[in-house]
């Protein structure tokens, strides 16, 4: 006799269903999949991240284009500003707030009760961040192209441009995840943008380095964003420049070593049995 409905469901054998260890890649993909699905469900987090770089691009261009071009500081200020907009689009866009929500709501603990490896709990979020950052850079690049900016390095240069921006975004996010994991406090995570200010403004964001003077020139020399912007600008304005790209990569790596070490230490501190 064939059983139907809920009774049939109840007598289904479970024997074959057994939990088993998974690979690190599987764990990262699982965590990242959830985080990526959540992105379009939080437009309040995504829309400002898109509007801010567009706003700065438009305002900076409107305010400084004539001045910088007439004084021969730069030849094409829109092209000079596009990397700044990209850095604004890719910096500080992260799932750190969602992580804090998980910590406070207990869902993070539920994840800890599964056999998932602990590092993928962070790496999966970084993968989702990369997806979001790339998604945010596309409209900004399209805006630049629509306004007449052209990449001297062509389509491959655009790809390298996006890779540098994405990698920078991930490395910067190490700071926000370190704060999220260490404090579990949404206010602390929201205030992480304070770290962004010196990185973004004490540099060559608005004028080339030779136009900076005094302490600002000195700080800009030590600011890794200066070298990131130089690498990105080389792709747009001057063509393939190995030295500029290497310096940009080194600057990103230096920030990444510090920020990701902090975030991994904070993760370890939170998940270690005490």
């Amino acid at each position, binding site marked *: 006799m064939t059983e139907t409905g809920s009774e049939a469901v109840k007598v289904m054998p479970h024997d074959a269903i057994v939990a088993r260890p998974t690979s690190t890649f599987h764990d990262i993909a699982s965590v990242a999949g*959830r985080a990526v699905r959540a992105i379009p469900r939080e437009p309040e987090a995504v829309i400002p991240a898109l509007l801010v770089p567009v706003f700065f691009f438009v305002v900076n261009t409107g305010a400084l284009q004539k001045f910088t071009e007439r004084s021969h500081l730069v030849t094409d200020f829109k092209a000079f500003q596009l990397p700044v907009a990209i850095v604004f689009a890719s910096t500080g866009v992260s799932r750190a707030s969602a992580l804090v929500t998980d910590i406070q709501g207990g869902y993070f603990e539920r994840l800890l009760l599964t056999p998932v490896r602990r590092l993928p709990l962070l790496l999966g979020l970084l993968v989702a961040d990369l997806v979001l950052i790339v998604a945010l850079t596309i409209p900004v690049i399209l805006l630049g192209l629509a306004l007449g900016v052209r990449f001297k390095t062509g389509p491959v240069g655009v790809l390298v441009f996006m890779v540098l921006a994405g990698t920078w975004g991930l490395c910067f996010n190490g700071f926000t995840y370190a704060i999220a994991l260490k404090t579990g406090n949404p206010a602390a995570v929201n205030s992480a943008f304070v770290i962004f200010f010196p990185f973004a403004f004490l540099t060559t964001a608005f004028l080339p380095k030779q136009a900076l003077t005094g302490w600002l020139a000195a700080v800009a020399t030590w600011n890794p964003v200066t070298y990131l912007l130089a690498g990105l600008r080389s792709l747009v304005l001057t063509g393939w420049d190995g030295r500029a790209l290497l310096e940009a990569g080194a600057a990103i790596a230096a920030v990444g070593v510090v920020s990701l070490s902090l975030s991994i230490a904070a993760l370890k501190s939170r998940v270690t049995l005490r």
Partner: protein
Amino acid sequence: MTAASIEAHDLARRFGDTEAVCGVHLEIRPGEIYGFLGPNGAGKSTTVRMLCTLLAPTGGEATVAGFDVRRDPGAVRLRIGVALQDAALDDKQTGRELLRLQGRLFGLPRADIDRRLEELSALIDIGDALDRRIGTYSGGMKRRLDLAAALVHNPVVLFLDEPTTGLDPVSRTRVWSEVRRLNTELGMTIFLTTQYLEEADELADRVGIIDRGTIVAEGTPTELKRRIGADVIIAEITGDHSVAEAALRGVDGVENVVLHGDELTIRATRGDAAIGPVAIALHDCGVGVRALTLRTPTLDDVFLEVTGGHIREAES
């Protein structure tokens, strides 16, 4: 001999100067439902968190499903399901997404996850809401989804921390029958903490009562109730309590008297024979009697006997 599903020896946990759990011994057999009773602060949740690998013991040792919670927590996690006291869910996901993710994290192939979702949908009983975001669920729906998430991977040992708190009576009955089914059909060992004594009475094969970090009583519900005596008489009185207590101790058939607030709990070998003399003794010593009740012992009486308070009062 079959190894215990959960075993603990001198399990202890200290937070600074506070000893939250001190020397807990447990031996829970495979396929057993173990009810763990105790008020907030008794060490109940701390014990559960150590057994679930969320908290490291500061003393003693424990194994779950044959694996040491401290030395091999990954192996323990593969074999346990946990529904903690507060439903820990992600409001942004749908119920289906949450269960699928849970299945993936436990390494289940897609086909097995599909099968488990079909099976568990009967337990969750939320119909199309399974595809709605969890943020739109009621408290009861969240509790049931939380339980389902603990069961996706068909665990060997299931920890249920107050699984029916906040549920309406119908949902509570449904969870009870599911707990019984999991135990009888699948032989799942279930460690159930609860503040509902009737829940422990209804479901548990054995009950442990924890108070101030130590297990103060353990046994089957019947064994524990037998400790109290055959019957219990409850007298709500006004007037001089100590006089009443002294008067009752001299009544034939009365085994013990416990005073708690305005309530006297009187243990008697034969309640039907003792209730008359009890009423007379109370009248003769000059106290007022608001109510006099005769009943068989409950786990609450056991709790009162071993901890000196009712579980509800201890909770508050």
